[in-house]
C-alpha cells in the first residue's frame, strides 16, 4: 500500500503504476454525470471548487443532515466511470486534474489525457460505500446542490487513507485493456 497524500504533485502521480494499491489522504471533489456534462458544455466551476492538482471522485454519495444541521456522509462508493468517457479527457486537461477515482475504468481518450497531463485513474471497490464512507473524515462543502440534487452535486470531502487501485497510469498502461484482451482470448477457446 502506497500512501498518496496531498499535495498531489505530478511527480507523485507519475511514480504510480498499474496494479499499485494506494491510500489517499487529502481533499476530493465528487462529480458525476451532470457535472461532467455541465463542465463539458462550458459551465463554470462554482467559486471554491479548485480542481488543479486535485482528484475528482465519480461518486453520488448518501449525505444527510444531522440534528445539528451538519452534513454527514453515510455512504460513498464510486459510480461507473465509463459514462464520463466523452468528457473526461478534456476535463483532465482543462482543469489540471491529477487523479480520477471511479469504477470500471475508462477508455482510450482518458488514458491518453492521463499520459499527456500526468494523471491517473484510481479504481475504488464498487459498492463499498461504508468502507469508503468511513474514510471521509469531513464534508467540507457542497456546490450546485439546487441545480443537480444531492447525488449529482459537487461535494468537497476530506479523506484519510481512502483505498484505491491504480488501474490506468500516466505511462499509457491500462489494467482494463489487459484483462479485456486476456478474457476475450480465453473465451474464444471455451465457446
Amino acid at each position, binding site marked *: 500500500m502506497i500512501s498518496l497524500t496531498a499535495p498531489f504533485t505530478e511527480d507523485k502521480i507519475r511514480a504510480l503504476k498499474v*496494479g499499485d*494499491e494506494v491510500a489517499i489522504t487529502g481533499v476530493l471533489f465528487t462529480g458525476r454525470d*451532470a457535472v461532467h456534462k455541465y463542465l463539458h458544455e462550458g459551465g463554470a466551476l462554482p467559486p471554491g471548487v479548485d480542481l488543479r492538482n486535485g482528484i475528482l471522485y465519480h*461518486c*453520488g*454519495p*448518501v449525505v*444527510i443532515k444531522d440534528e445539528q444541521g451538519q452534513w454527514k456522509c*453515510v*455512504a*460513498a*462508493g464510486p*459510480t*461507473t466511470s*465509463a459514462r464520463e468517457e466523452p468528457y473526461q479527457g478534456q476535463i483532465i486537461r482543462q482543469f489540471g486534474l491529477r487523479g480520477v477515482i471511479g*469504477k*470500471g*475504468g475508462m477508455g482510450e481518450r482518458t488514458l491518453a489525457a492521463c499520459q499527456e497531463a500526468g494523471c491517473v485513474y484510481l*479504481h475504488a*471497490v*464498487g*459498492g*463499498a*460505500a*461504508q*468502507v469508503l*464512507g*468511513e474514510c471521509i473524515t469531513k464534508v467540507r462543502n457542497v456546490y450546485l446542490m439546487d441545480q443537480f*440534487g*444531492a*447525488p*449529482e452535486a459537487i461535494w468537497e470531502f476530506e479523506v484519510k487513507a481512502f*483505498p484505491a*487501485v491504480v*488501474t490506468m497510469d500516466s505511462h499509457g498502461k491500462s*489494467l*482494463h485493456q*489487459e*484483462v*479485456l484482451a*486476456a*478474457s*476475450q482470448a*480465453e*473465451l474464444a477457446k*471455451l*465457446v
Partner: protein
Amino acid sequence: MKQLHDSLVELIRRASAEIPDDVQAALLRSLEEEKKGTIAESALQIVQRNIELAKQKSQPICQDTGSILFYVDCPVGFDEISFADTAREAVKLATKKGYLRQNSVDSITGKNDGTNVGPGAPTLHFHQHRSPEVAVRLMLKGGGCENVGAQYSLPIERLKADRDLPGCRKVILDAVLQAQGKGCGPGVLGVCVGGDRATSYEFSKQQLLRKLDDRNPVPELDALEQDIVNTANKLGIGPMGFGGKTTLLGVKIGAANRVPASYFVSVSYMCWAFRRQGVTLGADGQIEKWLY
C-alpha cells in the same frame, strides 16, 4: 396500516443494510478461493468489511440503493391499491432515514424531489395466489449493474449464436465479457430465454429472487446454469474486473414461451451488493417470517 407501514420500512432497512445469507456464503467462498496477496483478494476483503460495517451501522451497503422493486404474493381480495399507497409512504420515510439514497429522478426535467416516489417508482408487482399468505419480496437493483444487462435477439452471426441452448450459452457469456469491470463483480445473472422483449427482461429479473444455492428443476437449464458459472470463472475477469478467479457467484435461468418469429435471451446482471429481502406478513401487517 401503521403496522404494515412499519413492517415495510423495516423490510427496506434490512434489504439495504444486510446482505442475504446465501449471497454472503458465496462471497466468503470466493474470498477463500482468490489468490492471496492479489488486488482481487484485497477487493473482496474490502467487500467483506463493507458488509460488516453496513450491518453494524444499519446503513446502505452500497450508496446506489437502486430501483425499488416490490414483488407481492397476495390472496384473492387483497387491497392492492392501499398496499401500494403504504409502500410509497414507507419508501419516503426510509429515504428520510437514510436507508435509501435520494435516487429517483424525473426523466424529462432531471429534477430529483428527494422522495424516491414518482411515476414507476417504486415498482410494484402483484401476484395473486390461492394461499391466504401475503409475502413481500424487495429487490434494490443498482444502476451500474442494471446498465450492463443485455438482451439478445437470436440468431446472432457475430457470436455464431443460433436459436438453441448452445446459442444461449454464447450470448450469456458474451454478456459476462461485456459487463467486465462495470457491474461491480463478482455478480449474479438472472436470465430468461424466450418471451417478448418486455416479459423477457421481466422474467430475467424475477430469476434473481431465487436463492443462490437452489437448483433449477429443469435439467437442461440446471446444466446450463452450472456450465456458465464454471466457464465465466475461467475467464480471469475477477472481482471488479481486476483479474482473478471469481467473475460470477451464480446464474439463474428461466424460460418463457416465445412466438416462432422471436428468440430473445435477456440477461439481468446483479452486482455483489445483491440486495434482496422478503417477509411474510400477518393479518395486521406485522412481520412473521424473513424469507432470505
